[in-house]
Every structure is written in C-alpha cells, then in structure tokens.
C-alpha cells in the first residue's frame, strides 16, 4: 500500500472540479438514493466533501470514503440539477479510480474485469457456456416479462427475478454486418452494447430492421468490446482504458456517418465519459475519441432527428404505452423527445406519460449487484408509477433499465410488458405497410432459422 500523501496528492487533481461545489445542497432534491436514506454521505454534496477532506488529509479513511463513493447509482440526477454545473460524475469516477488504485481492486473484480471483461473473446465464450447451462438451474416465473428465478437456493441470485441470457447472442445471430449506404446516403455503425448482444438480441434485430426499411447502410463489427463503464465505475481505470482502446481500434478503419447505440448507458459513456477521461489517452487516441464522440448518437435520436421519423402528435389508439426516461439519456444527454416521437408513431397504442417518468429506476449497473436492497427500494417508486399509469407496455431506451423494471414488475406479478422503444417502433413499421409485412416474414424466417 502506497503512502497516503500520494493518495491525497492524486486526489488534488480533482480540486479544480470539486471547488465548484458551493455546498448549496440542491442535489438533495433529486438524488434517488438520498430520498431513501436521508443521509448526507449518500448525496453528491456529501461525497464531494468526503473526497475533499481526504485530499486535504483532514480525513484519513480511504476505505470509508471509497465505500461511500460506491453507494451511488451514477444516474447523474445531481449533475443535471446542479446550479453551479459541478461535473459530479467526472469527479466520482476519477475519485473511485484514484482510491481504487491506492487500495487495490478486490480479487473478485480483478477476476471479472481484468481476467474476463477486458478480453472480449474469453468473455463471450464463457457467457455462451453460461447461457446453455442456465436452463437446468432456473425456471420461468412471468411469461409476459420472460423473467426467471433460480430453481435452487443460490447465493449469487438470491431471490432475484431476472431476464435470462439469450440462447444466441446478437453477434452470432447476425454475424458481422456491413452494407453500403443505400438511397438514404447514410451509413451508420452500430454499437450494440453488452446487454443487447447477450440478453436482448431482439433489440438489435429491431434496429437492423428499421435501418433496412429506411435504406440506411449499416456496419456492425462482431468483435466490439464493452464500453468500459462497469470497470470504470468500480475504479478499474486500466481495464476501462483497455476496452476503449480496443473499441477505437475495431472502428478505426471503418467508414460511417454516425455511431449509434440502442443502449442509453453505452451512448452516454461514449459521448460523455470517454472524453472526460481523455487525459489518460495518447494525443492520437484523444483525437479518435473526439471524432467518435462527435458522431455518436442514441439510436432513437438518429431515427427521430436525423431521419425525421416518428411524430409528436398523439395518433395511436389502443392499450396504454408509457415511457421511462433512462437517466443516461435524459440527464446526461437531454434526449427525451426522440424516443417518445417513435413510440407515438405506433398506431396500436395510446401513448401516456407516467408520473415521475424521469425518476431513476434504481438499477445503476453494478449498484444493483452491490446494494440490491437499496436498488429495489428505489425501484419500488418506479414500479408504483408504472402500475398507476395503467399502461399495458412500458417502453424505455436502455436495456439496463429494462432488466430492473422487468424484475420489479415480475416480483409484483404484474402483466405489463417491458419493451425497448426500437422494438415498438419496428413493430409499428411492420404493421404499417404491405412492403414491410413481406420483410417481416423474411425476418421471422431468419429468426426461425437461427432458432433451429
């Protein structure tokens, strides 16, 4: 363990950012964790004070500070509402990395991040084994949601209801995709993200359907790595850097107009976190990051803004369809209109807003794993709002939120479907035109072929 002076010196790098926090406490109004616990060290102001005091050696408990820093959803609600514009997430992620560098990464995380995640090939083959093995150990508990729970007492799964790994990941279903720009004149690279690839390939195929229907050329490499946020939020900056580099390399010789992703968290990581961490990369890499960041869009943003799809009018009729704003789209990127425009285009649903549609669902990535009880308590409020809306379908644009919301609904034994905006839009597209009905058949056949 290195010298504590070294730690405080490293943390002083963050001083310029931390000093902008005027301790006004307005973050208390929006922090979903603070709403549950009422404790100052759970809210941004308190955490910043702890890191400041650690950096000034007024406080000499790096483990204690780390533990409190880790109790955070990284939802960015505080930063979005901060009167003085403190870059809270940058501070937290950097502080986590610095303190973890000082204390060392826990053995389990070392195994997961350094041993597996940073090696996409190994990670993928392990997960493919896992997806084949999960059948005997789990059972379906809610057919509307497709959720499962453990068949036997499992220390890892506890009493969770979860969406199982897909039998065949997206990467295997569609392989490496590369098509030239069609009549639209546009070509996009798709960054599917780990959850879409492994758990929700159907979101990826929906996106491919939509792009095909609108004659947009697509490139989707089959060897992209994780965006790095799980590693970075655990303080493992070396793995994060490795993953970013891998992704930059895999995309460097590909030509595309936009990089689009169906995952809110991946979008905001690439657009906001990669540049925030740019100082740790070489100049050439920094340029590559800047270039990529400029071209990265959430898939709904690309469809609604660039292609002009969707509608702001309420035209659909039928069962209720509501939308949950993922924090990483709404707070981080201010993308709120676009997913709604795509949902409103579905003729078979009545779009309606739930209360507190932009309140965090409590997932927070690994927060859910480390603080399951708190995550569930935060989620209860979201669950209540979804049920009160009486919608038959809750759509969102982040697969991580989908996992959390599915579990909440599954445990409440609710028959509410959880779908990605792209799935709903793709369905509308097919319901819309005869031409697309043919395409539908094609895709169904494709899917059948994949299954058999």
């Amino acid at each position, binding site marked *: 363990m290195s010298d504590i002076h070294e730690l405080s010196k490293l943390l002083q790098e963050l*001083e*310029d950012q931390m*000093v*902008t926090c*005027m*301790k*006004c*406490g*307005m973050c*208390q*109004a929006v922090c979903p964790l603070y709403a549950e616990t*009422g*404790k*100052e*060290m759970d809210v941004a102001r*308190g*955490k910043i*004070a*702890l890191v400041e*005091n650690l950096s000034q050696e*007024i*406080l*000499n*408990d790096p483990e*204690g*500070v780390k*533990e*409190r820093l880790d109790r955070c959803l990284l939802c960015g609600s505080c930063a979005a509402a901060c*009167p*003085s*514009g403190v870059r809270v997430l940058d501070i937290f992620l950097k502080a986590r990395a610095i303190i973890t560098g000082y204390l060392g990464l826990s053995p389990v995380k070392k195994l997961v991040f350094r041993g597996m995640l940073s090696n996409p090939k190994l990670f993928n083959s392990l997960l493919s084994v896992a997806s084949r093995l999960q059948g005997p150990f789990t059972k379906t508990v809610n057919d509307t949601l497709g959720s499962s729970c453990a068949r036997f007492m499992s220390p890892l799964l506890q009493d969770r209801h979860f969406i199982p790994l897909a039998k065949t990941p997206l990467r295997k279903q569609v392989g490496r995709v590369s098509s030239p720009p069609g009549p639209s004149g546009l070509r996009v690279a798709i960054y599917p993200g780990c959850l879409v690839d492994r758990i929700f390939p159907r979101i990826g195929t929906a996106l491919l359907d939509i792009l095909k229907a609108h004659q947009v050329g697509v490139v989707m490499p089959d060897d992209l790595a994780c965006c790095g946020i799980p590693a970075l939020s655990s303080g493992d900056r070396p793995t994060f850097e490795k993953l970013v580099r891998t992704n930059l390399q895999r995309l460097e010789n590909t030509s595309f107009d936009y990089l689009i992703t169906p995952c809110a968290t991946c979008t905001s990581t690439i657009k906001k976190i990669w540049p925030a961490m740019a100082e740790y990369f070489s100049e050439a890499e920094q340029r590559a990051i800047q270039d990529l960041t400029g071209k990265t869009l959430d898939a709904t943003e690309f469809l609604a803004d660039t292609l002009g799809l969707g509608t702001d009018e309420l035209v659909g009729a039928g069962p209720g369809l509501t939308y949950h704003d993922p924090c990483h789209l709404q707070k981080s990127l201010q993308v709120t209109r676009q997913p709604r425009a795509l949902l409103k285009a579905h003729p078979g649903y009545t779009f309606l807003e739930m209360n507190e549609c932009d309140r965090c669902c409590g997932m927070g990535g690994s927060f859910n794993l480390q603080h399951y009880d708190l995550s569930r308590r935060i989620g209860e409020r979201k669950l209540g709002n979804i049920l009160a809306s009486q919608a038959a379908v809750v759509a969102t644009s982040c697969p991580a939120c989908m996992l959390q919301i599915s579990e909440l609904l599954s445990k409440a034994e609710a028959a509410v479907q959880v779908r990605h905006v792209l799935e709903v839009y793709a369905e509308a597209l097919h319901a819309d035109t005869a031409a697309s009905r043919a395409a539908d058949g094609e895709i169904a056949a494709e899917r059948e072929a994949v299954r058999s």
Partner: protein
Amino acid sequence: MLSQTVIREFQQVLGAENVMTEEADRHAYSYDSAVLEPVIPALVLRPPTTEALGRCVRLCSDNRLPITVRGAGTNLSGGTIPSKEQGVVIVTNGLNRIVELSVEDLYAVVQPGVITAHFAHAAAEKGLFYPPDPGSQTVSTLGGNVAENAGGLRGLKYGVTKDYVMGVDFFDTNGELVSSGSKTVKCATGFNLSDLMVGSEGMLGVFSEITLKLIPPPQAHKAMLAVFDSVDKASETVSAIIAEKIVPCTLEFLDNFTIRTVEDFRRAGLPVDADALLLIEVDGHPAEVEEDAAKVHDICLRLGAREVSFAETDEQRDRVWQARRDALPALARLKPTTVLEDATVPRSKIPAMVKAINEIGAKHGLTIGTFGHAGDGNLHPTILTDRRDKDEFARVEQAIEEIFEQALNLDGTLSGEHGIGLAKSKFMEREVGLGTILYSKRIKEALDPHTLLNPGKSFGA
C-alpha cells in the same frame, strides 16, 4: 472522543443505523452552505420519531454534549456548523410527517423535517397556499425555515416565515417538552414563546412540532418585465408602485452584470445593455389583477422604463421567472466560490445600496453581481471569487464588512433572510447595540445554563 457507553445509550434510543460514529459519516455533517471552515461533529444522530428526538436531547443534556440541529443543511450563515468540542448534530429529516392539515381552520401541524416545497404542494392539493418560498425550498426543511426566519420572493406582499408560525412545540435544553402558541387565529395566553423560537437559530430549543398558518390562494396572477437604463429609475419605480397602493406579490431586481451573465447562460434574449430589470408579478382577484397590472405598466413607463412587456401565457410567465431563477446558477458558474449576501435596506434606499455595492466591488477589484427582492429591499450582492486565493478572499471579507456598514448606515439590517449564525455574529453589536446583545445573552443563560443549544451562533460565545 465519546465513550462507548454513551454511544450505546444513543443506539438503544435510536437504533444503530441512526447513530453515526464513523469518521467518514461525521465528515458529511461538518458544513452547510455558508463559505466557512468545516467543523467535524463527534456524533451524528437521526431520530426517527419526535419521542426519540426528545430522548436524544435529554441524553445530550445528561452528558453535557452541545447540540446543533440540522434540517437540510442549506444554511447560508453557518448556523448548522457544529461545535468544535464534542459537538452532536441532530438531523431532523427523518421527522417529515405532516401531522394535520385543516382546511376548515386554515392551519397545519408539521414535524420539523418536512421539506418546504413538499408542504406547499400538500397545501396546494387541498386548495390552500403556504407563501414563504426561500430559494432552497425544494430541499430546505420547515424547522430550519422557522429557526432562521427564512424569506423568499413573496416577502413584500405575503411576508416571511414568521408571519405563518402559529405555534412551536419544542424540547428545552433538558429535553422537557414545551408547548407554545395555538391552532386558533387569536391567542393571548402567556408569553409569546413561539415568536421567540422564530429566528432563534437553534439556541433556545429543539423543535418537535410546528403549527403553521395557511391562506386561500390568489385566483389570478400576471407577470411582467420592465427594462431600465438606470438603477435609479428602476428603484424609483419600485417606490412609486408601492406609493400607488399596489403591492405586487413579487418585485425582483437584476443588475446589469447579472443580466449579462444570465443571458450568456440561457440566451433567452434579455437586454444586455439594460442597467436594471424589474420582474413584477401581481396577483389576487382577476379584475384586481388586470387593473393593477395596467397601473404598474403605466407607472413603469412614466418613471422611465425603456420597455415593459406582459407575460400573456404561462410559457411567457415561466420565461420571466426563469431569468430570475437563473441568476444564482449563472453567476455561480463564473468562479469557483460564490458568496451570497443578504444585507437589506428600506426599499427607497436601493439605488444608494446598489451604487455602494458597485463602488465597493470596484475598490477591491472584485466581481459582484446584484439581484434580489427589490420590493422588500432585500438584495443579494453575490461575490464571485476563489476561496483558495488567500489575497482575494481577504479582500472579499473586507468588502462584505463594508457592505454591512453601508446597509446599516442606510437604516438597513445585516440579514434579511439568511440569519446571523457564525458568519455575521461579529457584526451584530453594530446593528443592535450592546444592550440588546447583553439582554439576548441573559435570555440564553437563563434558558440554557450549560450552553448546549447551538453554542456560538448569533451573538457569539
């Protein structure tokens, strides 16, 4: 360090999760929103019930531990910074129940940790109105508002927190429950102890329940924005509106520096060459609102406003108030440290005060943006600095002292709505005189002989 025996006693009363002893937890309760040095408490308690609160106070008393009560910690004068020796912070945000809300009798009984905006919302749901709206209302607690006599934008017409306090039940320094006030409009029973509690900054008792007055809401409102080429003209307009017997519910002022900063921040099309903006809203019966709005419009033009525009839609109204809401965030982004003052003068003295603030800023080479509640003379000179720059910060402290001097010279007061706390205690005597300080000290000594209730605040130790 506190003994394990004492800590165990607190744990028995509150449950272990509500007794914070770890260093990293205690550090999170060492500050509030004032720009002051943090003080780390020895213990932090978060009572889940008012009964537990009373037992906490008694235990602190038995062990001679000084108590600082904290709501949301948004205090701007250091009133929630704990004592240096064995300080105990009692957090009230677990006491957040609205006990009663009476539509027939227009009052509510609340626990001290209820958040101001939540309470105003609950009142509005029952068709009633709780006017005090301090800038921190989305997080501040009613207990804190009463202890600091918090104000807000509606002070001119609707008054401040003290005008809505009908009763306060509190624990004295020994943990004995004291009741004061009543649920009735009239109450002439005994000393008016609830008024003594208002603005007492936690030095005379620990609030357990507060009875607050509610009023019927105005039926209509109309906002407008008036642009001026001189602060004098804007200020004369303020006086003229009042002289015309019109009392707007809000009458806010932005100086040129603030206008330019807000415009840089929001790009809402504010006139950056204007010397002053007045944001005015009248409310009441629809007919009265129409009449008052027309009169205010004419007065503004007659006294030299370059332009006056009405907000015709809710959206336009929101744009007017957005400019005001943006003032602090926009200024705060310019420099790392934001020192927000609240020296207040009679409203007719606003031009003199604004002029003095600008001169003081120029003299010390400081950036000061001034905005605030022109209608009640409560300005917020906001000094933008970097507290790490020792030389500049010394000039900031000098400037603050001169601003206070000026306010007092103009028959004003040190604090309109932020309280005295630690930040201004050394200036108290200049405003109130030694006699008042000694009288206050005797009250304190009589009611809290061991000086356990928020020591060192207001008139100092």
